[in-house]
């Protein structure tokens, strides 16, 4: 398994739990998975990165693209539980001020 995405539809929120490695070979798969929820009008999205051991800029690019999309639909894409390394990369790209980031999934889901 390189990357696995577990998807759960909650009352107000669409939750995606990502496990493994997100790079240029599979980042679009992550983006398309989120797109399908947004297509169905679910614009409040939580991306739990707790299981992500590695993410390259390809993954960030998809996250930013989907964020723009859900914001236009009046929703938000919020991040939960990034590892120290992924958090550092988000900060380097200035994305820590663009995404709402929560230490736990419960807090991210509860923020909607």
């Amino acid at each position, binding site marked *: 398994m390189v990357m696995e995405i577990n998807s759960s539809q909650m009352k107000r929120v669409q939750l995606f739990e990502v496990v493994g490695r997100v790079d240029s070979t599979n980042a679009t798969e992550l983006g398309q998975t989120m797109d399908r929820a947004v297509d169905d009008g679910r614009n409040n999205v939580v991306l739990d990165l707790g299981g992500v051991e590695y993410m390259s800029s390809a993954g960030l*690019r998809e996250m930013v693209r989907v964020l723009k999309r859900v914001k236009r639909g009046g929703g938000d894409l919020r991040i939960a539980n990034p590892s120290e390394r992924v958090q*550092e990369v988000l900060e380097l790209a200035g994305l820590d001020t663009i995404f709402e980031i929560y230490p736990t999934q419960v807090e991210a889901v509860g923020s909607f």
Partner: protein
Amino acid sequence: MGEVRRLVIAARLEEVRDACDFVVEAAEAAQLDERAVYHCQMAVDEALTNVIEHGYAYQGDGSQIEVTCHTDLNRFVITITDNGPAFNPLEHESPNPAQELEEREPGGWGIYFIRKLTDDVAYQRVGDKNRLILYKNLPTAIQIGGPDEGGEDLFPTRMVNGDVIIYPAGRLDSNTSPMLEQTLKSQLEQGHYWMFVDMAAVEYIASSGLKVLVAIWRRAQERGGNVFLSGLQPRIVEIFEMVGFDMLFEIFPDLDAARAARSQQD
């Protein structure tokens, strides 16, 4: 220059992961810490992805990219060589991380991260090849010959109101007792006859360590001083009692108690 590790991959995104694994292994072998290893992995991933997405976009299969790793004096060096069209990523402007969401362009972040995650980057056009060289500094401790070589081997000491506090640590055996002796002697030679030896971090003391303490204690006493011991772990106390040293030395539960006893004697 250390051993050179070399990997050749086909110019396809699916192969980048192998190159990442290769670089991670080499970076770990070069003693980089977990964070620096991650930085190397990501820098290489971004560099290879750039080469493949830009340089090879219109080429058929069969193109290859070479990745090598080695260490020079104080840097871990990753070299990426491809035979795509001339492309110097360093000439391209990096995106601005302070940009608002709607102003953000999707491209350019690869080279941005390469710059951010390494300590230096160089580009060379060598014949018909592009060469990108990434440098990551090695931890300071292993630069040139190891830590504190040639320095005096002494345990830490601290002066408080003319008294000296000595902090030996670890095992005081035939290997380390000379270091304790050297530490204590140099204090006596500087005229410091009142010594507090805080033994809290001492895990074991052999007869060689005991001998040093007694010898120094005698000399301190001859000069009107003393050696106060504190913070002995239970196992050390046991050893002291076994050889009757508990009758010889003033022993205190901790350094503060030893200091308080000293001020009462003044």
